[in-house]
């Protein structure tokens, strides 16, 4: 079986597993959701049956499951009783905002993280290297949400100067698109920095370790023997080969990034999937919690699938060895 097909089947079965898991988690375990929704004992049998049917909770577990699958395939994620809106609309809007945040901070993390990691790795054991490692470990040990709280305190209360909440100024009227763009960018600064600060540490450490590993390879000795400059050795030979193990760690990175984004969105009221998840937890709004959990997880699975494909394009050796 060709690799692409095999990998795609794995992806589909993972998605199927998470959908099924999701069904049991939210539809079977929490007891009788109708009692929760009704919040009163004074409903007659007819009203309860009606509610049950409208939430797809009548019939056997198996028939509930198939109806659930059918609804999912139609993009019907249910109705939110705290937002009074269709869940699909809610998560649709949130997803875009989260992607914006993730893209912005990933750009910073990848560029700065690799640069600093290569810098430290090529100076292994020196003072600048030790300082980089120690500060990375410190950053990595900080809870992301607490970093956000510190920045909110610094820029919202203490020094001021940057917006600390939301994606745009409330009730603002923009005379053109550029102003709107500028407003969102200003709101994006602190959440992006918060998310980047913690995840950059992860990237630096992995890049550094990978580079040190590569530097001890025989072909690096050859490169030195050819009389190449240090810069050429590190960047042309070291960096390019070190990127492969870094890419392998991308699954871990993606997971950490999503976890960090949830915390950042809560702290900065960034209207994305994380804030939606947080609000649905507070309101115990299970349809919203369920949909945001499902969508986030599936998105991560697909992202990992993409990273896997990228890895094979960048490292042809993998394809040959399989």
């Amino acid at each position, binding site marked *: 079986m060709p690799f692409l097909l095999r990998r795609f089947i794995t992806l589909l079965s*993972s998605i199927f*597993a*998470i959908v099924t898991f999701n069904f049991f*988690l*939210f539809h079977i*375990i*929490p007891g009788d959701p109708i009692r929760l929704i009704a919040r009163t004992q004074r409903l007659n049998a007819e009203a309860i049956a009606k509610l049950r049917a409208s939430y797809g909770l009548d019939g056997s577990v198996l028939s509930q499951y198939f109806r659930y699958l059918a609804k999912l395939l139609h993009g019907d994620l249910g109705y939110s009783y705290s937002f009074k809106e269709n869940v699909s609309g809610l998560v649709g809007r949130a997803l875009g905002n989260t992607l914006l945040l993730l893209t912005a901070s990933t750009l910073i993390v990848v560029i700065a993280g690799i640069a600093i990691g290569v810098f430290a790795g090529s100076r*292994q*054991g020196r003072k600048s290297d030790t300082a980089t*490692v120690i500060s990375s*470990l*410190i950053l*990595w*040990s*900080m*809870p*992301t*949400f*607490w970093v956000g*709280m*510190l920045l*909110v*305190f610094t820029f*919202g*209360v*203490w020094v001021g100067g940057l917006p600390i909440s939301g994606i745009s100024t409330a009730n603002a009227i923009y005379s053109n698109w550029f102003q709107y763009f500028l407003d969102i960018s200003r709101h994006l600064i602190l959440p992006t920095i918060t998310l980047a600060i913690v995840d950059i540490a992860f990237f630096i*450490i992995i890049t*550094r*370790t990978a580079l*040190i*590993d590569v530097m001890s390879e025989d072909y690096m000795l050859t490169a030195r023997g050819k009389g190449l400059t240090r810069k050429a050795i590190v960047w042309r030979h070291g960096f390019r080969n070190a990127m492969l193990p870094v890419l392998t760690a991308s*699954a*871990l990175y*993606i*997971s950490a990034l*999503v*976890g960090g984004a*949830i*915390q950042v969105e*809560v*702290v900065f009221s960034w209207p994305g999937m994380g804030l939606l*998840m*947080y609000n649905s*937890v*507070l309101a*115990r709004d299970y349809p919203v*919690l*369920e949909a*945001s*959990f499902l969508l*986030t*997880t599936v998105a*991560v*699975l697909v992202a*990992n699938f993409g990273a896997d494909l990228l890895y094979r394009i960048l490292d042809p050796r993998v394809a040959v060895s399989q």
Partner: protein
Amino acid sequence: MMKRIKTNSNHGFRYFLVKLWADRMGRWGLIALAITTFIAVICPIFFPFDPSQVGTSAASILTGPSRTHLLGSDELGRDVLRQFFTGARISLFVGIMATVISTIVGSGLGVFAGYYMGRLDGVLMRITDFFLVVPALPLMIALGAIFGQNITVIIMVIGFLSWPRTARIVRSQTLSLRQRQFVPRAKSLGASNLRIIRTHIVPHVMPLIVANTILVVAGCILSEATLSFIGLGDPDRISWGTMLHFSFVSGAIGRGAWWYFLPPGFGILFIVLGFTLVGHSFEKITNPRLGGSV
């Protein structure tokens, strides 16, 4: 009389303590862990925290550090320092208990998958990869929201979602041990698979498991803090994460009540860093090939 040959994996607790102390990273880590353990175990005895002892007047709410409240008071007029001491205990307890679950599940699966190989290995590693890829925090939030805000639930949720990395690491080490000569030799002497695992495999992967476990504690403490911050903490057992949750929702940041949200954050940073440093240092000791790399 046969003399027992002492191998690297048979060193005792004291040996590692001395070695850790000799390493700069390890020493700082040990100091951090000792201080936090002291705070968590001893301080709450002398300065107990009573959640029901709320302030009597509006003036007692979110007051700054003073002689009666060394670290000020919270949004209900309760002493922050006492909360900080109790919080250390809960954060450490949850982190360690979750790690115990995670280590047992992870190393158990890893050893069995690596030793028996074949189909069992295939199935177990497929499951492991699935949990490795699924983002942990959303799953923890979903489970925590459904099963309720309870310290046992939190420990179970974190523990049962933090094992995949351990399983992977232990499995690859077991696989390479399995190829060694002593496995067929022990078999030819009539040793059962379980006996080989117990007497030959487990002692050899132990240093790896310990190093990994120390790092897992750091991750579990962070997970607990995050879950509690989201609002899924046990309201009766306040941890550092729960303190940060209440400081956040009560608007302590906006009021500039730094004494409320700084100490628990630094506490988490301090203890997580301690475990991370000791873990990396331990890795260096047990696997000298790693040298200076992290």
